């Protein structure tokens, strides 16, 4: 197990490094070099950046300086804002995004498998068709469209659901659902096919032949095994949630990290773009590692296989 963990950890670091490098290279490859002295930055900002990043030095050295700063936990200074650094903005925006992301993830992980299991247990009957129609819609309708629909048809009609903004729990409901619907659809479909496969397995017959309660057969035998593949796609889900959050935050006007990211794109605030991208990448990679770990603990076959039996 340790060997596997180590391998994954190293890969994660390597991937992260790749992302940092790619991001750095890309941002500095923007035509009309925004980092150059002749660029469009105000003098003051340029001087600050100059001091920190040595903008007149060769690219390679700038890279090293940037890396060094990153390792110290400094994501840089914004090109456009004179008041806040990237770190400040991350500190402000991340908790909001994280909260919403978590809520969306919970929605996806609780209702998704439930829907999928329901469909599998009632194969080809109406709960199956209904669940699968919902699921197909969920994966076909992008989250921002969902969000728009929610605002237009729900928020406008239901008074206690705000149209946008942030502050109370009510503010989190619609956005989390808009965000979580696509992952929910994925998990529902995955759960359905996983359950169907599991239900056809011999050990389900064995369980039935022992005369135990149907609920026990379903929960302890079927669901327990069917849910494993979902855990393994958890990483992709988180990744999708991350990206979906940009758009949802934009639509609902939620002051999260995504909003900063989106603004940085339209402002062409390159250091902010770099900083937020890398931060996102870190979050993503940590999540992927955690998911791997979780999977190893939950599936007894893997845990023990790695212990060198």
């Amino acid at each position, binding site marked *: 197990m340790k060997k596997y963990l180590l391998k994954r950890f190293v890969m994660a670091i390597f991937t992260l490094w790749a992302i940092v490098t790619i991001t750095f290279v890309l941002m500095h*490859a923007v035509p009309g070099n925004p980092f150059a002295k002749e660029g469009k930055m105000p003098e003051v900002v340029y001087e600050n950046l100059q001091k920190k990043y040595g903008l007149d030095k060769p690219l390679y050295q700038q890279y090293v300086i940037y890396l060094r700063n990153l390792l110290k936990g400094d994501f840089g200074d914004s090109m456009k804002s004179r008041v806040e650094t990237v770190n400040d903005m991350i500190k402000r925006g991340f908790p909001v995004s994280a909260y919403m992301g978590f809520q969306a993830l919970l929605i996806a992980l609780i209702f998704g498998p439930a829907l999928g299991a329901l469909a599998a247990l009632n194969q080809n009957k109406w709960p199956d068709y209904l669940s699968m129609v919902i699921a197909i819609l969920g994966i076909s309708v992008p989250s921002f469209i969902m969000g728009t629909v929610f605002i237009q048809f729900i928020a406008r009609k239901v008074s206690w659901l705000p149209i946008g903004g942030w502050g109370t729990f009510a503010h989190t409901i619609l956005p989390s659902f808009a965000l979580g619907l696509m992952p929910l659809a994925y998990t529902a479909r995955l759960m359905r096919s996983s359950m169907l496969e599991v239900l056809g397995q011999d050990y389900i017959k064995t369980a039935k032949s022992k005369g135990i309660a149907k609920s026990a057969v379903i929960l302890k035998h079927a669901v327990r095994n069917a849910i494993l593949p979902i855990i393994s796609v958890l990483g992709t889900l988180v990744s999708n949630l991350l990206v979906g959050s940009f758009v949802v935050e934009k639509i609902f006007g939620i002051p999260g990290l995504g909003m900063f990211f989106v603004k940085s794109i339209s402002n062409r605030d390159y250091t902010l773009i770099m900083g937020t991208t890398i931060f996102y990448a870190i979050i993503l990679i940590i999540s992927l590692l955690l998911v791997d770990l979780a999977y190893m603990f939950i599936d007894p076959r893997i845990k023990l296989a790695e212990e060198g039996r």
Partner: protein
Amino acid sequence: MMKEEFTISPDMFLPASEEDRDAEKIRRPSIDYWPDVWRRLKQNKLAMVGLIIIVVMSIMSFVGTEINGFKYYEQHYDLINSHPDSVHWFGTDELGRDLFTRVWYGARYSLFIGFMAALLDFVFGVLYGGIAGMATRKVDAVMMRIAEIIYSIPYLLIVILLSVVFSTSGQGSSLFVMILAMSLTGWVPMALLVRGQVLQLKESEYVLAAESLGADHRWILKKHIIPNTLGPILVNVTLSIPRAIFAEATLSFLGLGLQAPKSSLGTLANDGLAGMAVGHSYQILIPAIFISLIMFGFNVLGDGLRDALDPRLRQ
């Protein structure tokens, strides 16, 4: 047990003739693979609905812009932000342009981007996977590592970054850039698929060489391997189109889409966002519905294909 009412006569006990018996009788017709696949697909009503949607959309994206006589860039200042009516069936946008025409115009670009990105994914994937499969173990291992890393980089993140870099400051990216950006990480599953098949093929060749059965059997194997691979590849391509369209829509929604006056469904949606607050929600809803319809069509068709190709579901 039902007793048969018949009289038994001695001559019935004479031995039966050889011809009368048929030990190898097969009573059920066996069906060929591909026609069977098509038959099963046809039975899947949802998949057929998807197919129809796609075909209709594709046709309309060419024809639709000519139907009601307005051009996609034609601006009518006296008619800005008008709701759908009998003249402008989908209403007009904030510059007075007919949305019906613009929607089909946008669909053209969205579909084009989707198809092209999927095509590039396919080409990259087949090349990379094919090479990795045919190469030596070491080269293959390295190639797979690289692919793994590329795949673990979030698709959309890179797309966004690339678009940022290559988009002219202020207004959107070129068509080429968008397509390229989107095919950059999506080819990996295809490569894995192709590589797997190539490895299988290689292995069987070695076995054949060892048994020295000659070229004849290679041909036969090709007849087995190719049908086996084509199926999953087809499914993969069909499902990567909606992924690309989704990515394009997201990009456009972030302001990184095509430059005006060119538009895709995504940029139309983005343009329409502002209208939502002031009661012109049709401006965002209509393109949004069409995006969803296209994605739905491809998803459902891809699903249907996957089910139809699954040999385990053969009846």
